């Protein structure tokens, strides 16, 4: 099956059972429907989004799984962070509804044709979508909550943990 796809598309083998295909966003529906007809990558198991704020893009990975659940195909599209809009995949995969709704809430991506893009896990959220990297979580928390007394002695222990680990390693190596 994957051989068939490899003939038509530039598929990269990332790991023994993981393949990747990078496409343009305007070909998304066309290519995914062709993949689901011509191969046994029939389930959409996840839509993962990464915010590449440096490159001004969102990278969305549509992760497809075979019927036997033994191989995964990641179909990546990159869209601009500013006018982020994509066609919905509702007609191909009904489960995309809730995934798209989640992405809309967390990144503000508009999925054309999905009419359930309203509040999901965040109710009455008035800020910018919280998983966009320009959203400053700490500033938001400091502005909206005050902490209980006693929290301030909660020090950052990362450096100390590192030092102790190095020390333990040293004494182990010395033996």
């Amino acid at each position, binding site marked *: 099956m994957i051989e068939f796809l490899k003939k038509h598309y530039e598929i990269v083998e990332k790991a023994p059972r993981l393949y990747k295909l990078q496409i343009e966003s305007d070909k998304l529906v066309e290519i995914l429907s062709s993949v689901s007809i011509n191969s046994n990558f029939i389930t959409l198991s996840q839509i993962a989004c990464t915010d590449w704020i440096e490159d001004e893009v969102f990278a969305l990975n549509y992760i497809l799984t075979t019927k036997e659940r033994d191989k995964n195909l990641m179909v990546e599209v990159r869209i601009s962070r500013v006018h982020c809009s994509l066609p919905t995949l509702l007609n191909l995969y009904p489960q995309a509804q809730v995934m798209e709704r989640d992405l809309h809430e967390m990144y503000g991506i508009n999925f054309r044709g999905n009419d359930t893009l309203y509040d999901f*896990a*965040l*109710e*009455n959220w008035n*800020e910018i979508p*919280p998983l966009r990297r320009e*959203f400053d*979580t*700490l500033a*938001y*928390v400091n502005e*909206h*909550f*005050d*902490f*209980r*007394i*006693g*929290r301030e002695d909660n020090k950052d222990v990362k450096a100390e943990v590192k030092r102790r680990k190095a020390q333990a390693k040293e004494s182990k190596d010395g033996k």
Partner: protein
Amino acid sequence: MPENTQEGFIDQQKVLDNEEYSIKNTQSIIQKAVDWFRARSMFVLAYGTGCGAIEMPPIFTSRYDIERLGVVGVATPRQADILIVSGYCSYKTLKRVIRSYEQMNEPKYVIGLGSCTINGGMYWDSYNTIKKLDEYLPVDMYINGCMPRPEALIEGFVKLQDNIRNAKSEAGYIQYRENNAFYRANQEKIFGKNTTPTFEENFAGMNQ
């Protein structure tokens, strides 16, 4: 008393624990009897808001069998006396928790289970979870730990029973009734006007 320092906080605790200051001495005999019975029959609405909820099944089942202390799980808020908020509370959950609490009949008590309810726990810098449960609901007993062992929860129950039996401090539901404006203001701070109906709205039409 300097309440907003660690020492002030400890001093306050001492006052609460002091026999002289407790309202025990003013209790009538009937009230004492009622409180005794009340402490021996706690109907629990276990609201699994966070990961701490996983410690509740062992408590109610044969391993720890908390029914021997008179603690029983119930299905709906209207049957319950105790609300356990087990862990972090997102805004969305909190709204449901408040609704459930307001549906419960008095006398009612709240147990905050886990560090997340006390000071945000490991979700202290999360944009979507509350940091202090007692700003929104009156908490009668906090149990710290992440997550608390079932033994800790049992100890919390025993302490709460002790508090109810001896009327050590004013129960939370009375505070909620009397200081309702404080709690509502905090709730509205995060929900906007889109919060639960007020007491007046709840009881409007009751007398008609």
